[in-house]
């Protein structure tokens, strides 16, 4: 059922559309009528000071936080029309998420962390093993496949997280300060990978960052301030 509503109606050109999105936490307005469109394959950097509402916007886009008003559409499908179950399905099939603190599952190896996302969307075992091996090679971690997160460096963990976000071929990657916990060299390496992999897979990217250099991999930059979006 979800495939019908989400996949069949998916817009050919617009990956993400946010219209008049509003969200308050208690009496504090966090999103004050955001409008945003990201095209398929487009990479957009979202900047803004702390507390401007960036993370809330990401959470709303992936359906974890519901909007108070307005609409968010992924591939032409309005999130507000989807049930919790369909939202879960949308997240695991159409979105890839990269966190600042990597958030790998500590009890799974690098290989298993990547494979887990593929398993969640039901990719057959042989195919997913092939995909994981390919991605591990692509992020330069074939020799670290069996290592657990606590045995990996920060840069390695983020590369695993990147592979995990891409394995199920999502339409949109949401990256929340992916280089925030890394040194410059590792940060650059991750950014390069993010760019090249998103290009290879034709994935749209919404990159939240504080770092101006990170925005270089993006097609455009937008800024949030006090719950409003300023587009340059």
């Amino acid at each position, binding site marked *: 059922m979800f495939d019908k509503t989400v996949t069949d109606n998916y817009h050919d050109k617009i990956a993400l559309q946010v219209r008049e999105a509003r969200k308050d936490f208690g009496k504090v307005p966090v999103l004050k009528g955001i409008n945003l469109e990201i095209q398929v394959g487009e990479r957009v950097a979202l900047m803004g000071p702390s507390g401007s509402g960036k993370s809330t916007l990401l959470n709303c886009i992936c359906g974890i936080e519901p909007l108070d008003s307005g609409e968010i559409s992924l591939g032409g499908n309005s999130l507000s029309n989807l049930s919790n*179950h369909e939202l879960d*399905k949308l*997240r695991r099939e159409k979105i890839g998420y990269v966190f600042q603190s990597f958030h790998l599952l500590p*009890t799974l190896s690098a290989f298993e962390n990547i494979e887990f996302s593929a398993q*969640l969307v039901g990719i057959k075992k042989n195919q997913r093993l092939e995909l994981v091996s390919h991605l591990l090679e692509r992020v330069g971690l074939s020799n670290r496949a069996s290592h657990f997160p606590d045995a990996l460096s920060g840069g390695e963990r983020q590369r695993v997280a990147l592979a995990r976000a891409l394995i199920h071929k999502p339409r949109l990657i949401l990256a929340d300060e992916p280089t925030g916990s890394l040194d410059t060299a590792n940060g650059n390496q991750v950014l390069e990978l993010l760019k090249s992999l998103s290009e290879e897979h034709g994935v749209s990217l919404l990159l939240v960052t504080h770092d101006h250099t990170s925005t270089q991999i993006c097609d455009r930059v937008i800024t949030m301030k006090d719950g409003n979006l300023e587009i340059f």
Partner: protein
Amino acid sequence: MKRLPTVFKLLWLLFSITTFRHFRAKVGHYFLLVAIVAVGVGAFNGIRQASRAASANFGLFNQAVSGRSDFLIESPSQRILESSLLDLQILNEDPDWHLVPVIEGSITTLGEDKNPEKQIRLIGLDLLALGNLPNVLEQNLEFAEKDDKWHEWLGSERDVWIGRKGAEALGAQVGDEIPILASGRRMKMKIRMILDDPDGNLPEDLALGDIPTIQNLLSRKGEINRVEVILDQIEKREDLEYLKKIENRLAAVLPKELILGPTENRAAERAAMTAAFRLNLSILSLIAILVGAYLILQALDAAVVRRRVEIATLRSLGIDRSILFLAYLLEALLLGLLGSIAGIGVGYLLAFASVGMLADTVNALYFSTSIEALTITSLDLGIGIGLGLVFSFLAGWLPARDATQTPPAQILARGDWSPGFSLLKNPKIGLSLIAVGILSLLLPPFVMEGGSNMPLGGFIAAGCWILGLAFLSGHFLVLIAGWMRPLCITPSSRLACSRLQDGSSRHRLAVAGLVVAVGMVTGMFQMIDSFRGTIQEWFEVRFQADLYVSERGVTGAGNLNGIDPELMDELLSDSTIRFADVMHLCYAKPKTGITILAGVDLDAWNDRVQQIWLKPPGSLKSREGVEPALISEAFARRFDLLEGGVMELDLPSGRKSISPYGIFSDYGNEFGTAAIDSETWKSWTGSRRPVNASLYLKDEFEVNAARDRLRVAFPGLDVRNGKELREVALGIFEQTFKATDALSLIGLAVAFAGLLLGLLSIFDESNRTWQTLRHLGFSTRQFLWSASFEGAGIGLTAWVSGSIAGLAMGWLLVHVINVQSFGWTLIWNIPIGEFLLFGILLIGVGFFSGFISANYWNFRRK
């Protein structure tokens, strides 16, 4: 020293700005926690009070009438012939004391349906003499409405006095004739008067009478039980020097076959008889405190997890580890203190609810008893609160230690820090505990005051092995999860299995707590099953007679009331009987404690009467010139006669020696029985009273028809066939284990509550993992499945490790603790069906615990 005030100030600051605020924010949660400790401490207090009230009536029943006595003159068999009283006459002439002869025994009232209804203790006193002792009596009971009527009851054959409570219980009024069974005869006792007893000192199951009346009712003409000595100068009762002088004077003129001792000795002897029983109950009830402590540990641990950021922030602000450690330890102590205080009330309620059940057990196993009013002594309060505090302290230790290991906020924020409990990850501790347990088995049993043995090494081994296996269970968890991992194909099960295989300290703690409960409960399963199996086998072999005869109505394996010998002679003259194995029993005094001397037909025991022989007759060589005896295993173990020897026993006719030539199994009592030839028994004890008889009928007579006929002919006797006897015995057996079952259930229930708390704590600590999974599209349903699998995995591991611990417990209980405590060899039965069922139950409960905790966690998060 300067640091101390600073520490207190900081502690107070921490308590006021954090701990108390957490208390206020979660009043219900902390209330529940205090309630759990209260139940744990209450169970211990309750069992202690109830077992004391249920078995405390070793005090002298007649004290309500004659007041406190100072010394007792007794015979080793607790029966004195009136002819011996003549020897005491010289004592009676001394103005410093008064002698009060007492006879006591049990009878049973009959209901309207003529079936036994209520067991009553009969006390016979020289009421006339007591009337002349107003200055020394502490009670002031009027035995006649008008003093000038006292002579009316002199010489009465069946007039008794009862208290107000007794009258209410019997629904009796003055002048009523109550049908009773006494010494195997159906009789009537007449209520002479209902005594005015404003202080309520007279128990409801007590009836008083003049000595000849009670002798008549009990068919024990010319016998009394003891003589009590009351000092004339009651103000000198506490003067030890004076008491010693009096004791020496009494002893100097006392006939040698009688024993003199302070009155307290009798209470102590009776207390010693039930010491092992009460000790076992106390140890069992400690389980309740143990699981209560486990819950405190889990709850405090959960609190540490929830407050991790707060602790890290405090650390960043410069609060050092020791202050944090003290703060968490004090929090545990505060909960323990509140719980222990509440446990006093809970204990009283539990005692009130369970005292009847325990009294029934004491009645069945030891001696006739009646329930005394429940009392709480300052020692009870001290022990209850002390244990609550000690266990809370121990329970608070690990979480407090864990709190101190929390790094400052900046390190915590990095997100790569994993919390402690390193103890649970170190197999050396578990292995060392098991080794200590093995070594402790070399310790000999500790001999208690009454001569019973406490298997000290066995108890230490039990504690060490259970704890050792609890420590090792985390390693089993990792192993089992590793084996299960290839079988897990769904994302939920894979995730659950990977988390279990990771073996976090919290997972290990949850398993360890369950292992303790499972180990103890499965150990109990085995002991009860082994006991039941052994007794059934013993019955098959030992009880092959056609019919069994005993006194009707009076219960208690230790009740040696007996049957009127003339009645027994009459019964044995019945033409249907081919042969009768008549048993006479009396108490006998070894050097310490008390034991039982039986008079039987030894020739019949050697060949006709079947026994389970530990050493068949003749396999031990009895000493020449010493009375040959067959002894029970408990007797042999208690007095170190497994390889034969000579044993001296004090009896009414003086000190006698017996020498065993065979050892038989007997599960009837733990004091031990020595069986000698019945003629010798009669001459040694001066009594002819049999206690029971096994009847072998002539072949031409049908058993049940003979039984029915004998029942009609002897309505005061219980005549049962083998099947009926077995049912009665198994009834007593089930009664014995009621308390054990109840405590096991409490233990299990609290352990499962601990599992729920443990899982909540685990999910709290995995907060970030769940958030990540949500972003990855892991649905709530998948989360619930995963949590349920995790719970089931913990249940499975607890079952496997707990069963190993349980097998070790079973072996210990059957082969060490039972043998040393009671002198009984049991056949070790492992109830495989119950084990498997228990496993399924544990996995199921684990699964649902996971599901419920995850749901609650999810609800709380929202």
